[in-house]
């Protein structure tokens, strides 16, 4: 299977699923349905450390796992975890395979055209990491380099937007594969979240990478289908409460070693 085919498939599916109203008609009010069914289906990617991953006993762990647990505790219904990868989150949501997405789901204009988001509850920096010996301060310096990125992520979007002529983007199917490629030395540049670079360097002891420049800060929120005002209002209120009482900040600090960025705090206060 060639990669262009796979990419075309995802794009085509996205375009098809964008057709409004087709799926939505079946789900009048997601919040009411969640309460009636007594469960909420939350889509997460457990192959995206340190956001979602498996611990030594193959139990889910990570900042998004804790966030989802906090959400269901406050909602008062049990959690049903739906496994997704970063690339198929939107199709899963649109085809009613899950109720919400809690999976480092960056809030972008492109996604807003087809789905809805809560206000942001955290943010992830999108950076380019590379070899310490090279002088790379911005996109222009990437000419002639090969840069690994996970397909369909916000990192992919930013990199694709800024990439200069003569640079090659090497896209991988998920974070696991990207990390493997970079950790095994196949690619020396990596457009990703800072948390992953430390993980890569644990396996790249001979030629570790460092952050060269930040492409952008991406606030991420809970993803939901469009036309769900009740669920959106509940989620927004939930984010405000848990940013204010510091619970979301504590989760973020536990896995990422730093506090929530100011734009998230401001959005919750507004």
């Amino acid at each position: 299977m060639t990669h262009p085919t796979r990419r075309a498939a995802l794009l085509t599916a996205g375009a098809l699923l964008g057709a409004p109203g087709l799926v939505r008609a079946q789900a009048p009010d997601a919040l009411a349905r969640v309460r009636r069914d007594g469960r909420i289906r939350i889509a997460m990617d457990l192959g995206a450390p340190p956001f979602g991953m498996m611990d030594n006993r193959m139990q889910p762990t990570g900042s998004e796992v804790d966030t989802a647990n906090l959400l269901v505790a406050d909602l008062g219904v049990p959690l049903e975890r739906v496994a997704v990868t970063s690339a198929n989150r939107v199709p899963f949501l649109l085809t009613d395979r899950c109720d919400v997405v809690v999976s480092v789901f960056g809030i972008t204009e492109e996604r807003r055209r087809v789905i809805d988001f809560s206000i942001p509850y955290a943010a992830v920096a999108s950076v380019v990491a590379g070899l310490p010996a090279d002088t790379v301060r911005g996109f222009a310096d990437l000419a002639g380099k090969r840069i690994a990125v996970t397909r369909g992520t916000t990192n992919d979007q930013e990199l694709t937007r800024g990439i200069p002529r003569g640079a090659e983007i090497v896209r991988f199917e998920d974070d696991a594969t990207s990390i493997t490629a970079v950790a095994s030395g196949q690619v020396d540049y990596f457009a990703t979240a800072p948390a992953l670079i430390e993980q890569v360097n644990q396996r790249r002891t001979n030629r570790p990478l460092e952050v060269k420049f930040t492409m952008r800060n991406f606030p991420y929120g809970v993803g939901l289908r469009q036309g769900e005002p009740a669920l959106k209002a509940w989620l927004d209120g939930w984010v405000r409460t848990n940013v204010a009482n510091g619970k979301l900040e504590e989760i973020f600090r536990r896995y990422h070693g730093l506090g929530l960025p100011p734009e998230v705090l401001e959005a919750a206060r507004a």
Partner: protein
Amino acid sequence: MTGEFNLFHAGYLLQGAVWTLLLAVIAILGGGVLGLVVAIGRVARPWPVRLLAGAYVQVIQGTPLLILMFIAFFGLSILGITLPALVAAGVALVLYSAAFLGEIWRGCFQAVPQAQHEAGAALGLRPFSILRLIVLPQAVRIAVPPTVGFLVQVVKNTSIASIVGFTELARAGQIVNNATFQPFLCFTIVAGIYFLLCYPLSCWARALERRLVPA
């Protein structure tokens, strides 16, 4: 945050292998039955049947398996038919295998010399009896090596099911790799399990060939 590869990881991989095996069995059995129908349709006398079977083969062979899975899983959802991941992946694999097996077997039917058909007709056998008693037994012999070659492909193609959220062996390998950061060890084990799934098929094919081909 990450840990050494342990028995929990191995167990998770084996669980993925069970799903891979199950998908492969569904694809092989379902694809085999439907494939036989397609093969017979391709050599049938009435031309609309031949046309229909030919069109099926053209359409499916011209569509990547990935797209078939997408249609079965996401596409049907738009129409309000929600299939579980196992069913959607199973349906896609069955349709895919049937087209290829049908085409392989059609070639094997046609490799049986025309004179054999004529001999059957001369004995007063009906067309279906000629197929069952004379052509099929000879065609099966020719069919074994290409069929098994394709079945091994099917086992490996089940990995595409991960796109519809199915945690089979390849996806289990990715998740374990993310939990351990030991790609070499993890993917070597995954490759080993795939080999253990495929090698018995090859052995069985060799034994079958030896039994079927007259010395």
